[in-house]
């Protein structure tokens, strides 16, 4: 990056450090923070949507839908994350390729499953093997978002399901007394009031999601933990910047990052909670009313 970094073996001290911290590899590391933040920003709302759909399905009057919702929640919550990430992603990836294969290569005669091998026709590869590596990475990232959303959606569904049941019956009854249909009470009374009950559970999930991002590496997405381990490991003179085992410093950096994330999240959650309690028939809402806010 800097001109004086031409020959790393001839410099030392702070100059060396400045060059070291600005290598291409370190920029990959810095970028991975953005990858993780982007993943969180996309996954959280998608997971919430999955959770909402799951909760609505689980309390549906219609039996098949109810079974589907309850089955989704029970199954995904019961499978360890790591198993889910290893199995489901490969299954999803192969499932997509199988579908594309059926559409594009109807004349393909060779077996798709050949022992442990999975072979679709070259046109059905997703993404195409000719595609640039960035596209492959983007695809891996997409798979990660879907997988995270399904896993965390199941937990969110359970939280929202509980929250929906926690809204006092009297509130719904009032709505019914005004002649609202069940759909109207759901939209106008239940959903706006349930968030305050769901928030503690959802904030737990958010914290767990922040810390679950190292699972990304299982999906081939190189996240901050991967880079910290890779950069911190002992470097022999095969590398331009040899150094001993520095993992402890890199992981210390990650610790600061995660603590900052937690601190910011706590603050946002506290404000959100105060806001959602406003005018609610809860203890917090009652306290706010008495304080005249």
């Amino acid at each position, binding site marked *: 990056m800097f001109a004086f970094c031409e020959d790393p073996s001839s410099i030392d001290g702070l100059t060396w450090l400045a060059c070291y911290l600005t290598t*291409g*590899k370190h920029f990959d590391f810095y970028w991975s923070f953005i990858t993780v933040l982007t993943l969180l920003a996309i996954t959280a709302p998608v997971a919430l949507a999955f959770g909402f759909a799951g909760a609505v399905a689980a309390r549906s009057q219609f039996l098949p839908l109810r079974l589907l919702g309850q089955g989704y929640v029970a199954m995904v919550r019961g499978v360890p994350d790591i198993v889910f990430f290893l199995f489901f992603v*490969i299954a999803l990836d192969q499932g997509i390729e199988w579908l594309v294969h059926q559409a594009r290569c109807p004349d393909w005669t060779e077996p798709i499953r050949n*022992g442990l*091998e999975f072979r679709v026709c070259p046109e059905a590869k997703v993404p195409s093997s000719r595609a640039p590596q960035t596209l*492959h990475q983007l695809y891996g990232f997409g798979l990660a978002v879907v997988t995270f959303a399904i896993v965390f959606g199941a937990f969110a569904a359970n939280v929202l399901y509980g929250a929906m049941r926690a809204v006092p019956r009297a509130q719904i009854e009032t709505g019914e007394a005004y002649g609202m249909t069940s759909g109207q009470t759901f939209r106008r009374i239940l959903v706006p009031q349930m968030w305050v009950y769901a928030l503690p559970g959802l904030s737990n999930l958010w914290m767990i999601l922040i810390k679950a991002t190292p699972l990304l590496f299982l999906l081939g997405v190189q996240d901050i933990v991967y880079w910290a381990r890779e950069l911190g*490991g*002992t470097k022999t003179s095969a*590398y331009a910047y040899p150094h001993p085992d520095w993992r402890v410093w890199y992981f210390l950096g990650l610790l600061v990052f995660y603590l900052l994330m937690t601190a910011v999240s706590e603050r946002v959650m506290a404000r959100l909670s105060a806001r959602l309690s406003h005018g609610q028939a809860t203890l917090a809402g009652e306290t706010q009313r008495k304080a005249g806010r």
Partner: protein
Amino acid sequence: MRNLILTTAALALASTAALAQDTVRMGTEGAYPPYNFINDNGQVDGFERELGDELCARAELTCEWVTNDWDSIIPNLQSGNYDTIIAGMSITEERDKVIDFTQDYYPPTASAYVAAAEDADLSGVIAAQTATIQAGYVAETGATLLEFATPDETIAAVRNGEADAVFADYDYLAPLVEESGGALMFVGDRVPLGGGVGMGLRESDTELRDKFNAAIDAMKADGSLNELLVKWFGEEVQTYPVDGGDSGK
């Protein structure tokens, strides 16, 4: 005008022809210097990078490098995420049952123990990387096997006293011992393991395997493979006889 259209059409055809040539995705670990590692620019580098690029050039293939965790490197080959494994993988009977190998491009070598003290107990706790021939060997010797996902962590385990010694490929260990300033040393005898290092491919990819085999043959015959071996592993490395013989097999 017509000329212009014709030229454009010809160019378009030429570019599709270029695109139609298949890209071979080369899967490697990127954590095993000097075989393969990620250099300071974030690119795959090392003996296998240089060798792989040369093989691809000789076989007239377009190659792209992909890194993958060692643990899942075989399953991901089988499900088609990349087309070859070129990651210092020794040819063994067990692996040969699930994937195919080219001929070896690195002669059968020795593995060795490295410890922090001369009197290390080699039947005590021995660190090795998961799913390697070295891990298999340690399990057979009756020592307590301590497995790690990356080779770097096995060395760290010896440095911090978690393991009595690490058992790994000699050529991987040599630079680490040399540059440790006396903190690490070879102990015990070297153990010859494995049938040399080859490229792993899907069993159904026989055509690709033949192309790489031919390219490796050519590189063995003209001595360019030996040059690469010496460049990355030093003068001591075992090389191939240049007359085209195949002692490695």
